């Protein structure tokens, strides 16, 4: 595969990741999301306790936004450019689906059938972002990796393979 070539990797100064809160989450983040009213952006299946449509969890824009919105600037190793994105922590999204105690993996599938496995422990411990909007807050176009995509902050990017940067996400199966 392509090797990561994002110029000089200067050791980042220790400090908080460059994340800012655009909107705080809704007051009751634990509630099971309502059945989707709008277009479904993401489907979560597998070993989950919270479902809203025949055993799976379908999330539209309104339900995704209830988790709040964070803004982050990341270095896309594939497009080799810096992009500003907004979204939610992947761990918050997964928490919403209430994975059962035996769950260990997120099996993520993209529209072009690209698939990766993310370690659920990593997802819980690390600040991995599921981008759902552009830096300006607009819907994320498919050409920019929408409807949703997984990105890593600069301090994580060196630790995780560029192959884990999955875009055009269609569904997530909790395994």
């Amino acid at each position, binding site marked *: 595969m392509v090797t990561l070539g994002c110029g000089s990797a200067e050791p980042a100064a220790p400090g908080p990741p460059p994340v800012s809160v655009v909107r705080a989450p809704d007051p009751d983040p634990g509630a099971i999301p309502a059945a989707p009213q709008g277009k479904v952006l993401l489907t979560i299946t597998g070993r989950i306790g919270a479902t809203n449509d025949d055993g799976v969890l379908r999330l539209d824009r309104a339900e995704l936004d209830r988790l709040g919105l964070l803004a982050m600037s990341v270095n896309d190793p594939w*497009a*080799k450019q810096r992009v500003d994105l907004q979204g939610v922590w992947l761990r918050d999204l997964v928490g919403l689906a209430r994975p059962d105690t035996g769950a260990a*993996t*997120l099996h993520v599938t993209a529209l*072009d059938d690209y698939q990766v496995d993310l*370690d659920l422990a990593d997802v819980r411990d690390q600040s991995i972002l599921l981008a759902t909007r552009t830096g300006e807050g607009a819907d994320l176009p*498919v050409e920019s990796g929408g409807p949703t995509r997984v990105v890593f902050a600069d301090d994580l990017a060196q630790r995780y393979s560029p192959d884990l940067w999955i875009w055009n996400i269609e569904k997530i199966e909790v395994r």
Partner: protein
Amino acid sequence: MTGGASRWERWARPRVLVAAVLVVLVMTVGLIGLYSVLLDRMSSQVEDAQSRSANLSNADREVLVLLQAVTQLGPDSDPDEIDLHRGVAGRQIVVSIASFEPGDPQVRELQDVRSELAAFPWDRLVESRGRDVALRREAIDLVARSEERVNLLRSEQEKQFYAVTAESLTANQHGQLTLTALVTLVLGLGIAGITVVLRRSRSDVEQAFAALKGEVDERRVAEEALRASEGRFRSLVQRASDLTIVTDDHGVVTYVSPAVEALVGYRPEDFLELPLLVHVEPEERADVATAITLLTDRPGLVRTIELRLCTADGRTRSVEAVCQNLIDDPDVRGLVWNGRDVTERKALESELNHRAHHDPLTGLPNRALLLQRLAETLVSPRSARRRLSVVVLDLDGFKNVNDTLGHGAGDELLQEAARRLLGCVREGDIAARLGGDEFAVMICSVEPDDALQIAGRVVDVLHEPFTVAGHHLTVGASVGIAHGNGPGSAEALLLDADIAMYVAKRTGKGRLEVFEPEMRVKASHRTRLQQELARAVERGEIEVAYQPVIDLCTRRPSMVEALARWRRPGQPAVPADVFIALAEESGAINKIGLEVLRRACHAAERWREQPGNHDLGIAVNVSVHQVLAGHLADHVVEVLRETGLPPARLTLEITESAALGDSARVAAEFARLQAMGVCIAVDDFGAGYSSLGLLMSLDVDALKIDRSLLDFDTTRRGSLVMAIAELGHTLGLKVVAEGVETAQHLQRAREASCDAVQGFFLSRPLEEGAVEDFLTGWTTARMADPVGHV
């Protein structure tokens, strides 16, 4: 005049020759540098070309999918689908653009494709659901054109990859020949020069120049041979197209050029009126059939297809065919295949591929190939990855074999180890050499315990004696195993097994450890500490504390033991045993040891200048790693000379360990130190294993009884202390009791007739400045019989 000229020749010619040798030497070194840079650059070019063609092939696929969606657009289609595929294709084009350098012409071409696609009125097309026939034809034309452009770029990149690979091969040959010629020239010039200097006769000089001329001729011959081989190589790679086949819309051959006979041994008649697939290698038939269907459906489309044809003598030839759909052409009415024989190129590719993926010494797959196979298994269905395990193993004591018997023996050992490893694995498993003395096995087990059984067998067979270069050796292996049931990459899985292997090595070698996630946390903690320690050593942040040792006979301080301390600013101190173990692992121990030795000897010499302290000795701890590194005695000589400390005042304390007993090198190093007058003491005696064996095999001067043995309840009322002290005295050694923390401990040490004691009860470790006060203070306290008060 003649005499003058001849003298000038005698003086000048040797010098001219020497100068020529130097010039050629410099050229040789320069060329070696130049070629290594060149080859490096080429291999990265090959990689780039490969990744570009992968990205372009993704983009091509997505554009084709878009084409399909546009073609099938109808009243019932999902209106979002076109936009979705357009977006996915767009993203792949962006990724492809990013894989080129900004100024490349391909970037312009791809950006052009991208903006053409973006400029199309897709909204109108989707709204009309394909009923606007003209607009839809326009869309199909645009997407088909875009696909062709992307596909062209992709095949260009593929060709680029082959070209770069061939070029790097040629450059490599070139470099080797030129270097051989230059080295020959140096030798020739050198011999000529020596001849001139020795004989100084005119005829010899002429002969030398004649020899030189011979070398130059030889070089010309070599260059001609190189040119000839280049020509041959080119003719293999770039043979002209020579095979033409026409098939009808059912894939049945209607024409084949006579060249086919030379290629596969069948006559053209054998092909006619039969499906082409009959002559295609069975494994490839399905792929070729798909390609034919795809082509047949789209008049005018051109594709490059690689296929293998069966030959009359039962082998296959690889053919690269440019295939064009000319069904609409009334003169042809079929697919036209223009093929060329690429069998040699394929063989060359697979040879290059083999060399890139195998270890030349053992013939086993290398790390790259193992990672590739692991990655392939990891993306396969979950049931397969669940059964995947990786074993990493490291030969214990391999370095010793290399150091003592030479690299030839080391290589022989590795080859034999590889053979034994291959004997343990089953079909489908992969044994690989990761580098050095590290091997790995990828196991796809049927039963859950298979992997463990195989790993256990590996431990057993590697523990059996080896016969290498006429010596019988036992090395053994530490083995780590990780299972592929979690997510994560091939690299991560290999790293997990590696971490488990290091745990096995640290906890006593020759063992098998199964990876647990906690090990990763500990390993990363260790790595971080090791990095911090390396920095602390650089900055001189390793401090030395001193603990007095009191002689029970004279009842006064006879010695001070130097103890290394690592205080991290603003963080808890790291216990000495922890950071010393870390330093031993990373090799920092040699620097730390020398630093502590130097500071302790300086300090001791200062204290000894004070009245009454003239007999004070200093004890410094040394690690077995320092001894095995082979510089310890040199360092001691250097420090003693620097400080002026008499050798007899220095004691080196070494902790007993398995490594101490069985090395002739340790005994030799100790003998050299003792010959100087330095004392050797065994530290923490009785805490580890092989204590007695150690005393038998090593000649030491003193024992320090481990603190755990003074403990009343656990050591049979102190009888062990007594027994050990007696043993020490029988062997003529000085015996020191460590860890004296209470009056009872002191009493027990006295009853056991220990020669000296050390511990918190007498003094804690002190800062350097506080030692002098302690020594002065003791002089007065001694009058009050401080030891005897118990």
